[in-house]
Each structure stands twice: as structure tokens, then as C-alpha cells.
């Protein structure tokens, strides 16, 4: 690898809890980092206090409010913004991007393109309407060397210097190597993979199950029920994931099972928290209003509800959560439904 690559700063776009944690992590290999903060006042405030999302910033991080600076100074950029703002961010960043840029994103959600007419049986939502973040990057810019980070990476724990691992997936070995070189240290392990879409889908779909796990926790249903949900949830993830173009392998690795276990057992997960609060009887609007950052799982449940219908994939867990969120079902009813999870063949995707 060329040494010039390392002498340039690395860009991080988005100063939420995960973006901040990644920025700090990057500095550990003596790397200079430029952290982009969209909001101008917030950007000034962070630059002064040197604290972002409750985490102390390393001295090697400089703060910017200019995407142009990120594009021009950095050849490697980590975009970590919520999926709802991702396309807009890319459209603004795109004029400053060239084909030599490498983008490794850490956003676990879908981009949804709404058609003119609302979705219905005659006008079904298809894969063409939903994009993973790597697809958004390629659509909106001339960048081709794209990768994603996926795995059990609760931001709080990374910030607290607890050991963890992640998967960097990309069709380009070069991207995986760059990611490894930049992020790897003695308590952060990096695996590489080629199935970019599979890794992205794993990260996205597990959020659904995390909401469900939070609900079970909130209802106090116990560990057996949680394990039941997680393992049936994995099967559901795989069926949906396959319909959307991912391979099974990614789901069985760190990006799938790994992330699933971490998020389904931790109140550090926003999606888990949403489920828990639903179980405690809070309304969806109130929960969202009370959160500082986006719980991607909520939007994903709506999207999968539509897609499952179009592709005729049975998604019992997703359906149940969809109904609870949209007030068609009480949490208690959902509990009964849980006990009616289909008991055909338990594992039917390995033949």
C-alpha cells in the first residue's frame, strides 16, 4: 500500500454515536481524521467542547462543516448518517467525489424511493424501490470502490474501549484491506468479506428482530422466549435476505448472527429500546420523539411489510411487529401470536 494514502486524513461523515466512535477508533493508528458535522451550531459546539455524542474526541480529529473539505482532503471516507438522510448527504458530497475515492459506510437501513402512486396490490413495492446504502453511493456518485461495516458494534461499548470485531464487506479486496489497515487494533478485529449486499442486508434486517427482542424483554417473557424469537428471526432474515439478493453466508457470520445476538440483548441498542417501550405501553410517536438518534428498525419493519407481500415471503415476526406499531394489535395479542410461530421444518435454508 502506498504510504501517501496514510498521510492523508480519513473522513467521517456524521457525528452520531457510531460516527464519533469510528472517528476515535481511526485515530488510534496515528491517523488524522476529519469529522463532518452537518449542523453549523452543533459543529462549532463540538469543536469547542471536544465532545460529540457524549464521547471525548481524540486530538487527531478536526471538525468540519464542509463536505467539500472532506472530499478534497480525504481519499477514504466513512459515511455514517441515518438512512433517511443518506441520499441527500451523498448528493451534496458527490460533486467532491472522484473515482479514486473509497467509501466504507456504517448505515444499517434502506433508502426508499416513493413512487407517484401509493403502494398497493396493483402497484407493489419491489426491490427496485429500495436501495442499500452502497447502491445509493454508486447511484449518486462516480465512486465504485464501496464497502460497508457490519457486525456487533454497539457504539457505547466501542467508545468504552471494550473488545469487538466487525466485518468489512466489499467486492474490492483493496477496500477491505484499506479498512483493515485503518481500523484494526488490539481490541478491534476486522474480518473481510465479498458479499457486500449480504452484509448490508444482515445489518438492516436484524434491526427488526431487535425491536421484537426488546418487546419480549419489556413484557418480561424471559430468556427462552427471547431465544425462540432470535432463532426464528434469523430464519426469517435469511428468507427475506435471499429474496432481496443476499447470500446465506453473510447472515451466519458476524454481520448477521453476531450483530443479532448483540442487539437483541442490549438496552444500548436503540431498536431494542423501542420494542421495550412499546411493551411498556408507550405510543410509537412518543417513543420516537423521545429519542436522540434514529431507530432504523421502525422504518425497516414498514418496508419489509410491503416487500414480503410483493415477493410472497412469509414474515410472521415482521407482520406482528408491523401490526403492533400501527396499533392494529396489542402487545399482549402479539405475545399469543408469538406462540403460533410456524413450526414446519425448523431450518429449511441449508439444502
Amino acid at each position, binding site marked *: 500500500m502506498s504510504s501517501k494514502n496514510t498521510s492523508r486524513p480519513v473522513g467521517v461523515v456524521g457525528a452520531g454515536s457510531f460516527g464519533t466512535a469510528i472517528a476515535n477508533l481511526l485515530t488510534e493508528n496515528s491517523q488524522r481524521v476529519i469529522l463532518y458535522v452537518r449542523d453549523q451550531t452543533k459543529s462549532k459546539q463540538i469543536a469547542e467542547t471536544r465532545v460529540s455524542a457524549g464521547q471525548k474526541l481524540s486530538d487527531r480529529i478536526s471538525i468540519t462543516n464542509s463536505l467539500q473539505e472532506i472530499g478534497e482532503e480525504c481519499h477514504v471516507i466513512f459515511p455514517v448518517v441515518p438512512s433517511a438522510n443518506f441520499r441527500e448527504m451523498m448528493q451534496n458530497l458527490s460533486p467532491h467525489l472522484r*473515482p479514486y475515492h473509497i467509501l466504507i459506510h456504517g448505515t444499517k437501513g434502506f433508502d426508499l424511493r416513493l413512487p407517484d402512486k401509493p403502494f398497493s396490490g396493483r402497484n407493489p413495492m419491489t426491490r427496485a424501490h429500495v436501495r442499500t446504502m452502497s447502491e445509493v453511493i454508486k447511484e449518486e456518485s462516480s465512486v465504485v470502490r464501496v464497502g460497508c461495516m457490519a457486525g456487533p458494534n454497539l457504539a457505547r461499548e466501542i467508545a468504552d474501549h471494550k473488545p469487538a470485531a466487525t466485518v468489512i464487506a466489499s467486492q*474490492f479486496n483493496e477496500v477491505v484491506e484499506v479498512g483493515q489497515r485503518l481500523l484494526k487494533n488490539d481490541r478491534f478485529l476486522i474480518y473481510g468479506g465479498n458479499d457486500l449486499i449480504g452484509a448490508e442486508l444482515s445489518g438492516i434486517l436484524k434491526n427488526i428482530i431487535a425491536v421484537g427482542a426488546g418487546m419480549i424483554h419489556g413484557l418480561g417473557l424471559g430468556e427462552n422466549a427471547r431465544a425462540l424469537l432470535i432463532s426464528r428471526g434469523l430464519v426469517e432474515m435469511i428468507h427475506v435476505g435471499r429474496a432481496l439478493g443476499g447470500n446465506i453466508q453473510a447472515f451466519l457470520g458476524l454481520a448477521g448472527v453476531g450483530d443479532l445476538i448483540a442487539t437483541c440483548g442490549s438496552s444500548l441498542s436503540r431498536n431494542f429500546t423501542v420494542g421495550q417501550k412499546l411493551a411498556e405501553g408507550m405510543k410509537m410517536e412518543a417513543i420516537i420523539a423521545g429519542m436522540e438518534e434514529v431507530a432504523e428498525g421502525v422504518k425497516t419493519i414498514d418496508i419489509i411489510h410491503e416487500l414480503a407481500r410483493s415477493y410472497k415471503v412469509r414474515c410472521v415476526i415482521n407482520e406482528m411487529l408491523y401490526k403492533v406499531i400501527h396499533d392494529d394489535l396489542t402487545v399482549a395479542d402479539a405475545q399469543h401470536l408469538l406462540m403460533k410461530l410456524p413450526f414446519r421444518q425448523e431450518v429449511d435454508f441449508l439444502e
Partner: protein
Amino acid sequence: MTRKKVRYDEILPNKDQWPIVKLSQNRVGFIKKVADESFHQLLTNGTPIREELETTVYKERIRIKANPWKVDPADDLRFWNNIKSELAETAQLTPEETQAKERELMQTIILRYTEEIAGSFKQSYYRFARTFITFGFARLLNATRVKGFLSLFSRQLDLDDKIQIVGQTEHIRKLAKKGTVVMVPTHFSNLDSILIGWVIQFLGLPAFIYGAGLNLFNIKILAYFMNSLGAYKVDRRKRNPIYLETLKNYSKLALMEGAHSLFFPGGTRSRSGEIEKNLKLGLLGTAIEAQREMYQTNADRKIFIVPVVINYHFVLEAPALIKEYLKKTGQERFYQEADEFSTSYKMGTFMLKFFTKGSDISVSIGRGMDVLGNYVDDEGNSLDAKGNPIDTRDYFRSGDEITEDSQREHEYVRILSKRIVEEYHKFNRVFASHLVAYTAFKMLQRRNPTLDLYGILRLSDEDLEIDYEEFKEAYKKLRDHILKIHKEGKVDVANHMKKRATISILHGLENVGMYHARRPLILKNNKIIIQDPNTLFYYHNRMEGYELEKYL
């Protein structure tokens, strides 16, 4: 129908400036360069030389026994036996001597391959072949179309009356002046390479080099044309890494020397009649490698990829091709050409039939792209999806320098090949003959939802009739949709498609597979009758890939 006749000047009137002429003048030097480069590449590939030599000798000796051709040199077996014994004798040598010997043998083999591959373009031959094709066929055409003996000398009909060249013709001429053009046509018929050869000279472009199957050189008359049109030889029987590496380097270095090239990226003729979906990545990869190496050596010249779509109402080989497709044994290890072209005589009859009977052909020249599939403007500048300029060089940079990364380039070839397939669909010119075939076949499938493909093809005669009115309704729906996506720039249509539905249906029925022994589709007593489901399937396949079935 009268069309304004366009004539194109030669963009490089002085043939001594043609890259291909320069290349053939320096043939010996070029062969050496290719051999050296291939040797170097093979050494850096990392596979042990010994292993590659042994595999190659083994495979070559099998080839000579199992599948000998007329064009094979007389000393073929002797040469390989020799290599074999020399390899065996190394047992008595020291490790250093062995290594030196192995390298020497490797170089000998590479040089032999390069000599075999290298084309021998001769200007005088070229001039003759060109005149022969344009003049000769134009005469034949007039003789049969315009009645009377004197018509043999009439100028009423030229080859370009029969062949419509549409699309970005001025654009490709500009690009050929700016850089090196790689033309990538679809491949349906053995006629394609001669047709494209004619198109190239008609557009005033210098001759292109292209890889022609060595089997075609078995036929004397074809060999003559091939040699004179800048062909180099590709032997599909030889699949050993040494041969493939040499072939790739030949193509790559010729591109770097500025020789415009013609690749049939589908590899062989489309067996199913469908537009190619899976392109052969090897040759396309040489364009990407050549471009990167040119950037590394600070040569600023660019390589432009120009997709070309050829459309026929009628493909002579269709019955044989589709049969082969249906039998499909898959593997093409020792690929043998279907026998319809095995002799000069058969070839001649085919050409005669083709050129004397009226069946239109259209050749659509697509828009130029850089090696990553970005469109280029007339100046050769790459543009991104939003029309902003981008520097192709940046794709090969990591950090601040141009680097070589074969895995990266492998991905780039896939991106490029996907783009070419997309462009094929955009520039594909829908003929009514394709659409009548598509409509009829899809109606059969609709009617027999429980049958698989083979079941449909085996339907009995009474099930092979469709009521004309019903057919017309379906055809109209599909045509409307095609005209709609044509407006959106997703496909091209022939002019006759825009006429009234009944007229375009008749045009389609008259032309679809018109010279086959059994025409696939006829209209009789207000019924559409399917006479040959196999060729119907073949012509129908041409319209696959547009998701038309939804609109039936």
C-alpha cells in the same frame, strides 16, 4: 422507400498511417514484444513453471490426437514430443540448469503461439477484398433485384441499400481520431465479421484487427479474407494458461499500439437468439489492462468501447443454433463448429443466398464509453451519470498514484460488461419479425401454463394455431409498450414498427425467418399458424430482457 445516401470520407486517407499497417510493418518486433510480455506475466502469475509446462504438453498432445485441423502445422506433434522429451531430460540437470531449461522451453512455446496468433495484414489484399465485397455483392444484388442483363452494371442498388447503418456514426469516426476504438458487436451469425468489416470501411475507418476462430482458416476462401481484413487467430481448442496469456497480451499490446480492435464479447454466436447476457471477460479485460498501462506510462490516449447491435430478420444458421442450444450439453471444452460452414462451397451458397435475397439488416452503432462504461463525448471526455466530466485515470489510482490491482480490474471488467449488455438493449432495433415471434410464443406459453419449454416445443399441430384477432390484440399491446419504452430511450425500433399494427404484423410475418425450409409463422384463413416452434422460439428470444411479458 428512398433514403438520402450518406458517404463517409476516410478519416485517415494515407494508409501508411493506419495503426494496423504500422503494426504489420513491424511484425517481427511486435511478435517479440508480445512474447516477452507474456513470458514476464506468466512468471509473475506465481504458478510453478514446471506445472504449467507439463499441463500444456499433456493437453496439446491430446488435442493433436483427438481434434486435428487442416490449418495445424505439419510439425505440430514433433514439436510437442520434443518439448516433452526435453522436459524429461531435465532430470539429469542441477536445479539451476533445470530452471534455466524450463524458462527456455516456456519461451519457445510462447514464441510459437505468438507466431501462430499474429495476423498478417497486407494492404494490397485488403484493397482487393474490400473492392470484392462492395463491388461484387452490389453487382449480385442488382442482378437479382433489378431485372435484365444490363442490370449487372446498374448502380441502382448498393450494399448500403440493404444494410442500414444507424446510430452514432459520426461519433465513432471522431473517437477513432482521438483514441483507440474497441468495437463490441452482438454475435448472431457467421456473417457478422464480414458484415462488420464492410461497415468499418464504409464509415471511413481504418481497418480493425480482430480475433477470428482458427477453424475459419480451414476454409481457404475465408482464410484469404480473414488475413486481408486484419484478423488474428484464436484457437478455441487451446485452453492452457500459456496460450491464453499469450493471446491476452497480443490483444493488449495491439491496443496499446493504437490498433482499433473488434471483439465479439459474447464469445461465440448466440445459440438461443437472445442478446448476449454473459460476456467473456478475458478479452474485455485486455482493454482495461491496456488502458491502465497506458496511464502508467503517461500515454494519454484513451480506449473507447463502442457497442454495436446487428439485427437480422433472418439468421440462416438459426435452426442449427437453436437445436444446439436445446441439446445444450453446456461445456464447450473441445468446441466444434456446427457443420453448416465447413466447406468453401457451403459458405459460398450461404453468401449467395444471403446477398441475393432481400432481407434487411440493420447495424446500430452505439455511443462510445470509456473502459468503465461511462459515456464519452465527441472529444473523448468521460462523463458521469449526471453529465459531469470525470477522469478515467482516477479509477486506477489508489492514493495519489496509478496502481496495478488485478482483483480490482477483474471487478471493473464486470462493471464494463454489465454496461455493454445494457447498451445492447438500448440500441437493439426491434423488427416486427422479432415481435410477431415473441407475441406468438408468449401466447403459446400463456395458454399452456403447466408446460415447460420442451413441452411447448412439442405441442401437436392443432395446438399451434392462434386466432388472428386475438393475436392482433396481443401484438398491439406489446407494440404500444415498446413504442413507450422507445420514447424513454430504452430500446430502438425499425421504422416499419411505427406503421399501423396490421401493416407491421404483415411485415413481420413476411420476414420472420423467411428463408428457412419451414417458415416459423404464417397467416392462413385468419389464423396464425406456428409451423416451427424451435425457430419461433429462437426469434422470440431476441425480445427477452425487456420484461415485456407483463404487458401481454
